[in-house]
């Protein structure tokens, strides 16, 4: 089957599915959301899935995933798993408020939190908070040129809604854990909306994990709004099985003085595509956009970052680092747009890669598009092997070639890991990176943060612990 046939087959399935289940898909939605869904369906129906003839998809081919026979779950189902067990996070001292999601559905109890903070299912929010929904939902995730976002908007069934009112600082980090588990091959559309009021602050960890070895296609869209001076510390942790695809689109909208740090850490996954869009819409807003990917075997990771400097006096800092081994492939596409009014912009973009094997591939494309004249922008991309001078230096002290390589790879990754400000999370990611580099971490382990080895001591030939 060639790409066109695959497209045709799956598109027919989606069209039939939409018309057969229209009543269920649109049930409970406000006229505003219903209209968005219909528009999105029409867009998706006309344009189909992204294909490799599109510039932004040139190096990421979905057709292998799309030829599978998928189920599209319409209802929330609980499977034969102990929810307390699968959602238990094993990170020591990582005291978070857990927001469980199964195949996209919100599994928590929509409890009332102090200070007017809301965490609930998106469906509930659509009916209960129409004003907030109408003001924010679908306002940042533009479906134009984003067919997967259109697909998500047309077919999403549920997701998480978080609302932090003005002047509320939430001390305890929130942790969204989205597990894919169905007993069969599924294709799910997860939709999240996070709205942060003026001067509010939040740490949010989004974990995407597989807990079975079925083929799963998870197409998630998350919209995040940061009002004036809001502060968000955001992490995406991805550890999926090799048969899975995860397309994760996050849209951040920052008002005056807002501050965002988002860090995507991809440890395993058959196909991962992270689309991160940041709009700096108010003066003095700042975004750090970081990423780390460690891929091997036939894994594929694609990071697409678009930073839109819409107004003056904003800063953005982008750093993505990756290590690719075996036949793994990676894509980095960074695009900074500085609009005509965005004077005094300071934007930095860098992508650094290490290829361990000569079969590993990275396609990196930093891109600046500048229409203002008083700006400071820089970009860079490197692809290389490990530094031979550094390796010689380490070996000259008696450290074996393999361990010298390990130390250098670890050091390369530590640059990103050390920027994780939640200490227990940083320590665990640090451990996971060591395990990953040693080939001791595989995606069949239940979740990215679950080591399956809490009883057994991690044995490193070299001890890289902090002392």
């Amino acid at each position, binding site marked *: 089957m060639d790409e066109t046939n695959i497209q045709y087959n799956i598109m027919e399935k989606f069209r039939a599915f939409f018309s057969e289940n229209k009543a269920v898909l649109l049930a409970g939605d406000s006229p505003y959301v219903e209209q968005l869904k219909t528009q999105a369906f029409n867009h998706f129906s006309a344009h189909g899935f992204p294909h490799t003839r599109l510039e932004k998809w040139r190096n990421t081919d979905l057709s292998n995933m799309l030829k599978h026979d998928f189920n599209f779950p319409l209802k929330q189902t609980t499977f034969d798993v102990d929810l307390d067990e699968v959602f238990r996070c094993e990170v020591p001292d990582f005291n978070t408020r857990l927001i469980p999601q199964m195949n996209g559905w919100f599994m928590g109890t929509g409890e009332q939190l102090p200070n007017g903070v809301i965490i609930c299912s998106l469906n509930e929010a659509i009916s209960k908070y129409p004003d907030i929904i109408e003001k924010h939902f679908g306002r940042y995730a533009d479906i134009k040129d984003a067919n997967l976002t259109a697909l998500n908007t047309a077919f999403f069934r549920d997701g998480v809604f978080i609302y932090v009112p003005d002047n509320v600082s939430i001390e305890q980090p929130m942790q969204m854990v989205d597990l894919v588990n169905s007993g069969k091959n599924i294709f799910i559309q997860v939709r999240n909306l996070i709205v942060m009021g003026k001067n509010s602050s939040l740490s949010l960890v989004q974990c995407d994990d597989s807990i079975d070895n079925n083929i799963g296609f998870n197409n998630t869209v998350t919209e995040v709004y940061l009002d004036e001076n809001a502060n968000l510390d955001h992490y995406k942790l991805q550890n999926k099985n090799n048969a899975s695809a995860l397309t994760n689109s996050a849209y951040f909208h920052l008002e005056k003085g807002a501050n965002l740090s988002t860090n995507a850490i991809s440890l395993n996954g058959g196909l991962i595509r992270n689309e991160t869009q940041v709009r700096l819409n108010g003066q003095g807003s700042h975004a750090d956009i970081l990423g780390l990917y460690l891929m091997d075997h036939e894994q594929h990771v694609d990071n697409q970052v678009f930073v839109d400097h819409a107004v003056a006096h904003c800063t953005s800092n982008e750093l993505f680092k990756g290590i690719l081994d075996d036949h793994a492939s990676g894509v980095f596409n960074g695009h900074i747009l500085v609009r005509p009014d965005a004077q005094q912009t300071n934007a930095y973009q860098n992508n650094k890669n290490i290829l361990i094997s000569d079969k590993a591939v990275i396609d990196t494309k930093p891109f600046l598009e500048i229409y203002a004249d008083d700006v400071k922008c820089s970009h860079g991309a490197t692809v290389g092997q490990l530094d031979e001078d550094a390796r010689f230096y380490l070996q000259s002290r008696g450290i074996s070639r393999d361990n010298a390589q390990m130390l250098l790879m*670890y*050091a390369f990754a530590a640059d990103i890991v050390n920027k994780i400000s939640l200490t227990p999370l940083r320590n665990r990611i640090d451990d996971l990176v060591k395990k990953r580099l040693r080939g001791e971490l595989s995606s069949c382990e239940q979740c990215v943060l679950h080591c399956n080895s809490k009883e057994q001591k991690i044995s490193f030939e070299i001890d890289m612990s902090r002392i």
Partner: protein
Amino acid sequence: MLSIKNLRASIEGKEILKGVNLEVRAGEVHAIMGPNGTGKSTLASVIAGRDIFEVEEGEVIFKGKNLIGMPVDERANEGIFLGFQYPVEIPGVSMTNFMRTAINEQRKYRGLDSMPAQEFLNRMEEKKRLLEIHSKLANRSVNEGFSGGEKKKNEIFQMAILDPELAILDETDSGLDIDALKIVAHGVNTLRRPDNAIIVITHYQRLLEYIVPDFVHVLFDGRIVRSGGKELAFELEDKGYEWIKEAQV
């Protein structure tokens, strides 16, 4: 301890060492002097095992074993230490992890268990005092953001931690002010013992006022052209390298 016979080495087809002979016995300090570009650093790199140099001929015997073809780390584990002229910055690898990994690999090579953490930390503290290093090394990446002087001190600090049988110090004095030079020399002198040896490579006689050598060799155009006692260094200081060059012509 070290015996170099008719060593010829080249880089990218260009011959740098053109037949070097050198004997170093335990307890001795040798100084190798000479103008820039005559092969001093190449000699140090070839002994340490840098693979960008091609050994064309000759042998380097250390404690009865031929080093040619031996991996870099194995040479270090046998007891060779190279103090780098240009120490490499390695962001992300802390000094503590670096030294702990190195010391434990060397112990493993010798059939010893890993050094207990407390003993290791004590040794770090002791050697930091010796080299008058005041910063907390646990949080500092190897040589990253170190000044020129700090980097050189750090080389001798590593030598003190690893306690090699043969240390080759490649222009350790370059870029040091007089105070740092005294600290470095004091460190090296403290580490001098009857059962180890040191080769000091330097362009200037100044360092040899503080680390007094037993033998001085002049390397010129890839060969050792003169050897003598410490007075040879003073003679060089007086007459300059032109004197050697003229003597060669």
